[in-house]
């Protein structure tokens, strides 16, 4: 029986691109994003991926007003 390819998603937030507005954190249906405790060079507490549970829905990407803060990756098992 052919097994369905499993897809694994992850998200990266570039610390120096983020303005810490929390839009992505509020929008994530899986609550896997958070604002962490350090500030970036622009002086904002930036958002970060907690590391597990992203389903690749894209909500954070389209909610984020910054051009390059959010990148979503997709891995598929061979």
């Amino acid at each position, binding site marked *: 029986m052919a097994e369905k390819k499993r897809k694994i*998603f992850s998200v990266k937030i570039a610390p*120096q*691109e983020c*303005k*810490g*507005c*929390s*839009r992505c954190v*509020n*929008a994530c249906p899986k609550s896997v994003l958070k604002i962490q405790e350090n500030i970036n060079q*622009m002086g*904002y507490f930036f958002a970060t991926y907690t590391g597990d549970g992203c389903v*690749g*829905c*894209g*909500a954070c*990407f*389209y*909610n*984020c*007003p*910054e*051009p*390059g*803060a*959010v*990148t*979503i*990756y*997709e*891995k*598929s*098992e*061979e």
Partner: protein
Amino acid sequence: MTEKIKLQRPKGFFSKFDRRPGPVKTNMHYCPGCGHGIMHKLIAEALADFDMQQNTIFIAPVGCAVFTYYYFDCGGISVPHGRAPAVATGIVRATPDAHVISYQGDGDLAAIGLNNFLQAANRGENMVVFFVNNAIYGMTGGQMAPTTLPGQKTVTCPNGRSTVNEGYPLKVSEMVAALDSPVYVERVALSTTKNIMQARRAVRKALQNVINKKGFSMVEALSGCPVNLNFNAQEMNEFIDNQMMSYFPLGCLKDIADNRDPIKRPVSIYAKNKVKAVLFPQAVDGGVDAEFENPSELFKKERRIKCAGFGGQGILSLGMMIASMAKLRNFNVSWLPSYGPEKRGGTANCSVVLSRSEVGSPLIDSDCNLLIAMNQPSIDKYLPELKDKGVLLYDSSTASAPENIGNRIVYSVAASNIAEKMGSIKCANSVMLGALAVILRDYFLEKDDPQDFDRVFEEAILDCFSHKKNTIRLNFNAYYAGKKAALEILQSSTVKG
């Protein structure tokens, strides 16, 4: 395991914002959480997906988004407040292949620029307007906009917008959708994920319309200005979804692009000589070749002629016939009418200036060389403007000879009486023209070819009445009657003299 990128920085943005001053070259100048950033992202993504950057011109007027040319990798122009649709019109008319985007705020579009915007929409210009409605003047620090909600506090309405004082929020999308020309109007919101994804579809649809040259599309995006409204991200979304949407309901208000053919407008003309040919069509009859120059010394200086009388006497067309003569003999000429608001009766006059070089002022209020007066008030009023040795020709059936004429030369003919006998007072102007052809012979002719002098009068009548063929004959007859009458008067006065 293979890894690929699912969503990343849209390619419609420059990879580095080198035009942005200061050290930060990868993100934009907007405040944290600003709706402009979300809208920019949707547009940048679509520009790249549709492979349309090469032909796109992105226009942004003042407002927080005035610097879009820092960010979008396509043609970009910043323009004065409210003027983006006017500039867009110029671009799209001059270069019909361009995909023109106008990106405007609510203060810009709905206040100072409302007329520019509505007229462009109503002309169905081939463009898209992205209208970012954040219910405030963002850039200038949070003043009331036409779209500010009732009760919403701003720095210029600290007690909240009062509908008694300032009226209700302006519903731009509803206004535009009511016009016949626009093909697509939708209101979306940059709030929840669901609404943003609908905004994404609307942006893409509007850009497809631009690519397909379907005419005017607009997407109004309800947007957050969290800084001026003093909200966090969640409060901002709630304000948009609960407060703004109750006045600005979301939805597609119009989508008829599928029923419209691509717009094809006449090709624009830029070559100077071609523009001239369109603006100043060649005379239908007569004229001389382009090299001709009237040899008379008299025309070393410009000649200034005023025709005046009652409205309805054909004063303006008399001036036009004289102007035509000048035009037909390669003079530069101006014709400037002035009349009361009433069409018949009242007073009318026109100034005609002809010159071998450029005409100075088209207005005559002094230094007049020739005054043609068809009633008494005109003589009384304009005689002082007539130069020493200038010529006065008046209608002796409506006015009597003036006193204190100094060195001026005076002629008269009973133009209105003659015209009335011929069946229409309306051709009194052509009678005057006939008289002019006689009295000017000695005065203006000098080295001119006398036959050409006679011919140009007839050409002028043809030129001026070419659109009213049935009156040409009457006016010719009146012209000859005027000549005859003037000749008789001249001969009798020389006999007497």
